[in-house]
Every structure is written in structure tokens, then in C-alpha cells.
């Protein structure tokens, strides 16, 4: 364990039990992770309900919701084609949940003593989301094409000697997809949050040593924190977008194999 003074930047990722739900012989711990997942889901629910009134002349809220649905619809149309509409509910829920979980974890609830927990900074959570995407790819691919689905590993027109080399590489790159999908989101969120907490730790530790050094260190640290916070808002959006984009690409592979695109 690294010596990080009194301030431990990894503390924010600890899963803590809030209360236990008795379940027969066992107890089901309700953790802060579960709490913030529910917060993200409820916020998403409220956001969607507010904008689904389907007025002919949309208000601001409905425009915001339709902006998001249209964005994902266009993404699917560009990557999968007209068959992409079928996967809109899944990819949209995925994108919005990741986006809300990322953003909720960044909100400064700490000012009122409520410490936000970034759900997506845990490999267990992002792993399940990635497995869900990967299973959809497998199910769609195998149902649609049967055993021809495995031609995904053998690009058309490849000579046999090259195929011996290409097929294992394609197979490995296919199997590694859920890991890379989950790892990217989880590490991007973890790294940003550690950086913010390390910078915050600089401010507190330097002020404790004296006013002179305190001002010298904390002013640039705070300026950097403001910048990094803005960058983290961008990363929260980009990572949700990349997750949805890669999911749609993988679904496209399953729907069309190597036929076009």
C-alpha cells in the first residue's frame, strides 16, 4: 500500500454497506454502489418521463430527450443500417444509464455531506454491462446466421495459408471485446477520480504545513482541478458514447458478418 499521507485517494471506491436486508438465513447488503445505481436509474426515469409527453410542438425538456434518442438512432442507422432500429431500446438504455451514472458520480454532493459513488468506476458493474452487450452479439449472430456466424473469424477471400494466421487473431480479438469494453469505461472513470482526489489532497496537505506553502501549492492545484473537472465531464460523455458506439459496431458484425460496411 502506498504511503499517501492521511488522505487516501482510493477510499472513494470502497463499497460500503448502508444497511442489511434480511433474506431468510442470509442477509442482502444494500451498499452505496446499489444506492447510486438506483439514484442514476431514478434520475434517468424522471428525465425520460418529463420528455415523453409527445407534444406536437415540443418544449425544451422534450427537445432534450428527443435530442438523445435521435442521437442514438442516427448512430445505429450509420453503423448497422435500417436494421439498427431494433437495437435502439438496448443501446439507448445502455448509453443513458452509463452517462447518468458517470455524471451523477461527478456531482458535488459532497458539499452537503453526501458522498457520491461512481458506479461505473467498478469493474463488476462495467463488466456486467459489457457481458450484456457481448451476449446480445452472440445471440443475434447465432440466431440470424446459425453456424455461418463463425465465418466472422475468416474474412472472405483470404488465402488458406494466411487464414491459419488470421483466424486465431480474429478469434482472440473477438473474445477480448467484452474485456476491453468493460476495462475502458472502468479505468477511464477510476483514473479521473483518482486524479481529482490527489489534487484535492495536495491542497489540504499543503495548507496544513503553513500559509505560504499553502497558497503556493493550492492555487495552481485548484486551477488544475477546475480544468480536470471540466475534462472529466467530457470524459463522462465520451466514454458513454464510445461504449454505445462499440456495442453498435459489434452488433453490426453479428447482423451483417463481413458482408458490407
Amino acid at each position: 500500500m502506498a504511503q499517501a499521507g492521511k488522505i487516501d485517494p482510493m477510499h472513494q471506491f470502497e463499497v460500503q454497506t448502508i444497511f442489511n436486508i434480511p433474506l431468510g438465513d442470509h442477509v442482502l447488503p444494500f451498499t452505496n454502489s446499489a444506492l447510486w445505481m438506483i439514484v442514476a436509474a431514478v434520475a434517468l426515469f424522471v428525465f425520460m418521463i418529463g420528455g415523453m409527453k409527445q407534444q406536437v410542438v415540443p418544449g425544451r425538456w422534450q427537445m432534450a430527450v428527443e435530442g438523445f434518442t435521435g442521437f442514438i438512432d442516427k448512430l445505429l442507422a450509420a453503423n448497422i443500417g435500417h436494421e439498427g432500429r431494433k437495437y435502439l431500446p438496448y443501446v439507448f438504455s445502455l448509453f443513458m444509464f452509463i452517462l447518468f451514472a458517470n455524471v451523477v458520480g461527478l456531482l458535488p454532493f459532497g458539499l452537503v455531506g453526501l458522498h457520491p459513488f461512481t458506479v461505473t468506476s467498478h469493474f463488476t458493474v462495467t463488466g456486467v454491462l459489457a457481458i450484456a452487450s457481448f451476449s446480445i452479439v452472440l445471440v443475434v449472430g447465432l440466431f440470424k446466421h446459425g453456424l455461418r456466424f463463425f465465418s466472422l473469424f475468416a474474412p472472405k477471400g483470404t488465402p488458406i495459408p494466411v487464414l491459419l494466421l488470421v483466424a486465431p487473431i480474429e478469434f482472440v480479438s473477438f473474445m477480448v471485446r467484452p474485456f476491453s469494453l468493460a476495462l475502458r469505461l472502468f479505468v477511464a472513470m477510476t483514473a479521473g477520480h483518482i486524479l481529482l482526489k490527489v489534487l484535492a489532497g495536495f491542497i489540504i496537505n499543503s495548507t496544513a504545513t503553513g500559509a505560504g506553502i499553502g497558497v503556493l501549492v493550492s492555487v495552481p492545484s485548484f486551477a488544475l482541478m477546475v480544468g480536470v473537472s471540466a475534462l472529466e465531464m467530457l470524459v463522462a460523455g465520451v466514454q458513454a458514447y464510445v461504449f454505445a458506439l462499440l456495442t453498435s459496431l459489434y452488433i453490426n458484425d453479428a447482423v451483417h458478418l463481413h458482408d458490407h460496411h
Partner: protein
Amino acid sequence: MEADAIKFLGAGLAAIGAGLAALGVGNVFAAFLQGALRNPSAAAGQQGNMFIGFAAAELLGLLAFVVAVLLIFVA
């Protein structure tokens, strides 16, 4: 050298990987902008492809970070 010292050296060396991934990500956006300024009408359709390149380059930098974290906290 102590084992701990070597671990921290390894974690520091992993930061080189993060820096190199930064070059890669910068390259992706630079190349996109170069192409987009030459043919702005085709730029909008290629944004998805840019983000695929960005995601691939970024992942390798994040892997370097994972290596560093594993060395410090797990190994």
C-alpha cells in the same frame, strides 16, 4: 534493491505508456482535423470512425495505468 522500490520503478515506467498513448490520441484527432479541413462535407460521416480510433488508442494508455495501479496496490 528492495522489492517495493522495484515495484514503484515499474509503476513509474508504466507512465511512459500513458504518455505514448497521449501521442496516439493526439494523432487520431490531428489526422481527423486535417482530413476534415480538406473536405469538410465528408467530415460529419467520419466522426464515428474517429472515435473508434480514439477508443483503440486510449485503451492502450489505460492499460498502462492499470499496470501501474496493479504494481502499487496489488502486486
